[in-house]
């Protein structure tokens, strides 16, 4: 019961943040809304017993990536969005399409919710760091190493692309 209430509260915060992201005109406001969403999501992860994931969500996503976003917004000093003639197709085709898709998926899920069962907060050692580490360095070692290479490439790419041409 408590879980459901908590879930609903945080879920509403998420959705509100997301809608605000869409509604704001200035990108900085959108960025801050996104940070709110991420924070709320982190709390939901805690509800799901994923402590490690919740932590790195805040540290990496909200603390690093979104900070990077905010830096770039401030660097470029982009102003509020102007109203220009945009793509009509995106409006008339994309929006209904997305709504339909979401609605379909949602309906399916609701209608099948009896069969799916429920989710509870797991036992406390479920999402512990050492369990994840065991998995990461044993079963998923190769992808782990490759992601480090990926980060290296991303660093190089960012440096190259960000250089000013003179």
């Amino acid at each position: 019961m408590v879980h459901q209430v908590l879930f609903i509260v945080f879920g509403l915060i998420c959705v509100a943040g997301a809608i605000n992201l869409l509604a704001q005109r200035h990108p900085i406001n959108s960025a801050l809304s996104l940070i709110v969403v991420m924070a709320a999501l982190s709390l939901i992860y805690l509800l799901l017993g994923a402590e490690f994931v919740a932590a790195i969500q805040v540290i990496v996503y909200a603390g690093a990536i979104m900070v990077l976003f905010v830096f770039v917004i401030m660097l470029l000093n982009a102003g509020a969005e102007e109203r220009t003639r945009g793509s009509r197709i995106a409006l008339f085709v994309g929006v209904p399409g997305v709504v339909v898709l979401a609605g379909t998926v949602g309906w399916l899920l609701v209608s099948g919710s009896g069969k799916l069962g429920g989710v509870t907060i797991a036992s406390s050692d479920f999402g512990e760091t050492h369990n994840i580490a065991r998995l990461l360095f044993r079963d998923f070692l190769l992808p782990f190493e490759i992601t480090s290479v990926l980060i290296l490439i991303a660093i190089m790419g960012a440096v190259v692309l960000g250089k000013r041409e003179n």
Partner: protein
Amino acid sequence: MTKNLNLWVIPLLPLIGAAINGLLGRRFKNAMVSAVALLFTAASFGWAAWAVWTVWPGSGIALPHIETLATWITAGTFSAPFGFYLDQLSMIMVLIVTGVGFLIHIYSVGYMAHEGGYYRFFAYLNLFMFFMLTLVLANNYLLMFVGWEGVGLASYLLIGFFFLKDSAADAGKKAFIVNRIGDFAFLIGMFLIIQHFGSLNYDAVFGKIAEGHFTPEAGWGLFTAIALCLMFGATGKSAQVPLYVWLPDAMEGPTPVSALIHAATMVTAGIYMIARSHAIFNLAPHALQIVAIIGCITTIFAATMGLAQTDIKRVLAYSTVSQLGYMFLACGVAAYSAGIFHLMTHAFFKALLFLGAGSVIHAVGGEQDMRRMGGLRKLIPWTFWVVTIATIAIAGIPPFAGFFSKDEILGAVFHSPYGGPVIWAIGVLTAGLTSFYMFRLWFMTFFGELKLGGVDVGEEAHSAHAPAQAAHGAASHSHGHADDEAHGHGGVHESPWIMLAPLVILAVLSVVGGWVGVPQFMRGHNEIEHFLAPVMESPAVAGEQPAPTVRVLDTTNAPEEKPTNEEWLLADTSVAAALIGLFFAYLFYYKRPELPERITSKMHGIYTMVLHKYYVDEGYGALLVKPLLALSTVVLWRGVDQGVIDGLVNGAGTASQGVGNELRRMQSGNIRSYAAWVAIGGAAIVGYMIWLGVTR
């Protein structure tokens, strides 16, 4: 025994001459071009003469003499060879074609000396000889048809020789198209022959007929159909009613062309074809009747039109149509050898007449209207005398050539069941008319006072030298005729010897040419009929009786039974008609020249109709040509070609373009639309997976 005469050389030699002159002649001097042309024509004549002499009856070589060079077409059971056929009939034809052709080549050297396109003329002339020789020497209908079409082509090329003149180009097209109509019928006839005989070779077809599988009582049957088709083809080529309309317009071509093609040789191809197919015609009495009627209508019809013409060449053109009608009539009463006899004498005197007219035109510097000539007798005496001989010959006055051949025909017509006294009377009347208009021409041209304009003729004449200026020169002549002759030396002068020599030779032939056909009641031996008799009987299996009701006058036996008084009476009547015509011409055009004016003004309506050739051309134009043009323009051109075909092709292009244009919108450069397409694609895939999940 047989001997290989290499008959294929005879047509080939002029072809080589045509090729040399046609391909290389542009760079030759005139002398070189004429040397090439004359050499090959003379060689062809020589070879033909040698071949004829070798197989002359009595030499021991069997006639018909057939040589096959190679097989041309083989299709199933049908095959057509390149084969050559020499019998008495083709002997006469080949000698006429090569001999008269050679004389006309000589004449042309002088006549065309100042014209542009000299090499082209001789190339076409030799090409014509090649096709004509193929036609007369072929041993099957298909090869004959090749020659048939080829002479039509050569005729088109030569009529439209001065191609920069609209009237000449149109005349060439008209000749070709009208001939094509006849050729279509000829083709149908050939298809019928293939269907029922399985072959187009003469010996195969005529041999099967001789074996007696067919009887003349078949009536409206297969043979009538074949015969009518062949006959219609002949009406096109030999300018009979209803397909004669091209021949008067063909006078747009140079005069030697008119002499060779439209008098002596090409137009006789139809007569030759009917004579060759006599076995088929003899089994189709109805068709023979129709041939006789058409020949009769044509002679009188054309003769009346010749009365009113004022252009010297047009008079001769209508005269040719009329004389061809006589030959057609002869074939229609199954007197084939009489028809061929007249063909031969006609070749001589008609070629002579045309060449003589050319000489006259050359002398007066390009004028062709007889009303502007006159009194030329003393100025061009040689031309005068040869034209006189020819005129007497065509009028049918003995002892010149035309009398014997015409009398032969008229006699046959009188006695034949297909002819009868009515048609005979029409024939005699036509003989009178022929004499009248020919002597009219004679008087108007050579007698009276000189009516020429004088010096200004030279100016216009000079300007007509090159075909490029022919249109300019033509504008100043009343009938718009081709100024195919212009020297403008200032004054009337006799033609050079190179033009006169062939005229003299032809004149001699016009005098003596008839003496090979003197009939028996005149105490002659009618050599030509006996000569042709083996051909005109069925190629008989020995002992076979020929069909009794026809060909009465082609055998050597029948004339004995006729009372000679009747023969003399008939002959005298035709001579009398000729003399009456001469008298009237003398009266109207020499003694009292004002009479024609008074008569034509009294009979104004009839005269106008005759002058405009009974409006036949206009009739054809309105009835056939205009609807066809309208059909072609509206239905075929705009409807089918532009609408359907262009529509399809262009439509395919436009459709591709349209589709491309629509698809191009996907590449708009706008990131959000790309995102939208991705979203849609993603949604579609998810939807599909859901559908799979739900329905499983």
